[in-house]
C-alpha cells in the first residue's frame, strides 16, 4: 500500500509549521535561526506562574462547559422522546444548529452586547455560558444521531420487566449512548480549549484563559516559551486522542 504523492504532499503541508515549531522549542537562541540544543525554555515554562493559572482557568471553563452541555443535551433528548412526535423533535433540535450557521464572531458580539445591556460583569461564569452555547451545538447533534439508532424494543422490554422510566434511563439508555457521550464530551472540551473569540469578547480582564494568554504573548512577537508550551500541548492532545480511541474501541466491543 503506497501513499500517492499528492496526499503525502498535503499531509506534509499540514504538518510542516508544527514540526518546525517543535524543533525550535529546543533552540538555545531566541530568534528564527538555529543556535544549539537546550531545554532551557521548558524549565522557564514550568516557572511561569501566569501560564499555569491560565491553564487552570481554561480547565475550569472547559470542564464546566463539558458537564453542562452534555448533561443538558442528554436529558433534553431523552425528555423530548417521551412526549413528542419525531417531527416536533426535529423542529426543536434544529434550534441547536444555529451555532453552526452563525459565524463565531456574531455569537461572540451578541453575547457581549447581551451581558453589557444587563450590566452583567464579565468573569469565568460568562465565559462558561458562552462555551456551553458552543458546546451544545456539538453535543446535541452527536447525541441525537446516536439516540435515533436506539432500538425502541429494548426500552419497551425494560419497562415491561418492571423498570421505572428513570431506571430505564440510567440502566438502558445511558449505557447505549455511552460512545456518543464520550465523543461529545471530548469535542466540547477541545472546542472550549481552542476557542479564542468567545473568550476574547466574554471574559473579564481578571479571568485569563490559556487562549487569551497565548494571544497576548504572540502579540508581543517571538517567544521560545510559547514553542515549548505548544510542544507540550501537542503531546498532551495526542495522548488524549489515543486514550479516547482506546475507550471507544473498548465500548464498541461491549455491545448491548
Amino acid at each position, binding site marked *: *500500500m503506497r*501513499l*500517492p504523492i*499528492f496526499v503525502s504532499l*498535503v*499531509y506534509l*503541508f*499540514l*504538518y510542516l*509549521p*508544527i514540526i518546525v*515549531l517543535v524543533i525550535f522549542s529546543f533552540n538555545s537562541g531566541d530568534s*528564527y535561526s538555529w543556535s544549539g540544543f537546550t531545554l532551557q525554555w521548558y524549565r522557564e515554562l514550568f516557572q511561569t506562574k501566569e501560564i499555569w493559572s491560565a491553564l487552570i482557568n481554561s480547565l475550569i471553563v472547559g470542564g464546566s462547559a463539558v458537564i*453542562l452541555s452534555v448533561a*443538558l443535551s442528554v*436529558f*433534553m433528548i*431523552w*425528555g423530548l*422522546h*417521551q412526549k413528542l412526535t419525531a417531527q416536533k423533535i426535529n423542529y426543536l433540535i434544529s*434550534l441547536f444548529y*444555529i*451555532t*453552526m*450557521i*452563525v*459565524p*463565531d*464572531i*456574531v*455569537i461572540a*458580539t*451578541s*453575547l*457581549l*452586547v447581551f451581558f*453589557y*445591556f444587563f450590566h452583567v460583569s464579565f468573569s469565568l461564569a460568562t465565559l462558561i455560558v*458562552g462555551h*456551553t452555547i458552543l458546546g*451544545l451545538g456539538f453535543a*446535541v447533534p452527536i447525541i441525537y444521531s446516536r439516540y435515533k439508532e436506539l432500538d425502541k424494543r429494548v426500552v419497551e422490554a425494560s419497562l415491561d420487566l418492571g423498570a421505572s*422510566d428513570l431506571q430505564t434511563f440510567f440502566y438502558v439508555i445511558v449505557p447505549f449512548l455511552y460512545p456518543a457521550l464520550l465523543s461529545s464530551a471530548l469535542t466540547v472540551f477541545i472546542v472550549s480549549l*481552542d476557542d*479564542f473569540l468567545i473568550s476574547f*469578547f466574554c471574559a473579564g480582564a481578571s479571568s485569563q484563559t*490559556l*487562549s487569551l494568554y*497565548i494571544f497576548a504573548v*504572540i502579540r508581543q512577537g*517571538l517567544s521560545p516559551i510559547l514553542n515549548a*508550551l*505548544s510542544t507540550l*500541548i*501537542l503531546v498532551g*492532545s*495526542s495522548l488524549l*486522542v489515543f486514550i479516547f*480511541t482506546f475507550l471507544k474501541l473498548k465500548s464498541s466491543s461491549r455491545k448491548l
Partner: protein
Amino acid sequence: MKNLKEKFFDNIPFFVSVPAILWQVLFLCLPILFIFYMALANGLFAFTFEYFRGILDWVHLRIIVRSLLVAMLNASLCLLIAYPVAYFLALKAKKMKNFLLFLLTLPAWVNFLIQVYSWFFVLERNGIINKILLSTGIISDPLHMINNQFAISLVMFHIYLPFMIVPLYNILEKFDPQLIDASLDLGANRIVTFFRITFPLSLSGVYLGFFLVFVMTFGEVVIPMFLGGNKTLFVGTLISEYFFGARNMHTGAAFTLLSSMFMGATLLLLYILMKNKIKTSLSLKG
C-alpha cells in the same frame, strides 16, 4: 384525581428537557435579537437608522466584498485540494485509513492560535523557506512573504483544509465503488464517470464543507490580525475594532448585521446557481 407527587413524576421528561432549550433561547437567540436592538435603538424605546446610515458607504462595502472574495477563494481552494484527499481516504486507503484520519485531525487539536503562530517560523524574513531558498542560491534577496494577502490566504487554507476534508470523507465513505465499475462497464470513461456519478452523489458533503469553510473564513479575526500586518481590514477585524478599539457598540452591531446579511445572501445565491447548473447539465446530457 392524581396527587401532586404523581403529577411531578409524570412530568419529569418535561422538566428535564426545558433547561437545554431555555439555555439556547436565553443565551443564543435572545442575544442575537439584542444585536438587532443595539443596531437600531438609541434610547430605551427610540429607534433610528443612523447607525446603519453611518456604515452604508464604499469603505465598509469594500471591506465586506473583500471578505466575501477571500472566503470564496479559500473555500474553493480547500474544495479543490480536499476532494482528492478525501476520495483517497474513503475509497483507497483501506488499512491506513484510521491512522491517516487521526493524523488529519491532530493539528486541529493544537490550539488554533499556536497553529497560526507556527507559520511565522516558516514565512518570516529569516524563516525556513527563505533560508532554504537563499542557501541553494535560487534567490539572492529574502522573499517578502508575511504581512500581506498571500500570508493570510495561505494560513486560512492551512487551518480550514481539514474542515473540508472531513465532511467530504464522511459522504464518500458511504459511496458504493461498484457504481464506478458499473459506469465503466457501460462505456463511460473515468472523467465522465467522476462528473456524472461520483461527484453528484457527494454533493451534500461538498455543500456542507464549502458552507463551513466559507462561514469560518468570512468571520476570521485572528489570521488577518497576526499575518496581515494590520494593513487590510476584514469584516472580523473591523467588528472587533468597533467593539474594543472605538468602543462603539451601536455601529459595531449594525456592521455585524450588515455583513451577516451579505454573507447569507451570497451563500443563498451560490446555492441557487449551483443547483440550476447541475440540473441543466444533467438534463442536457441525459
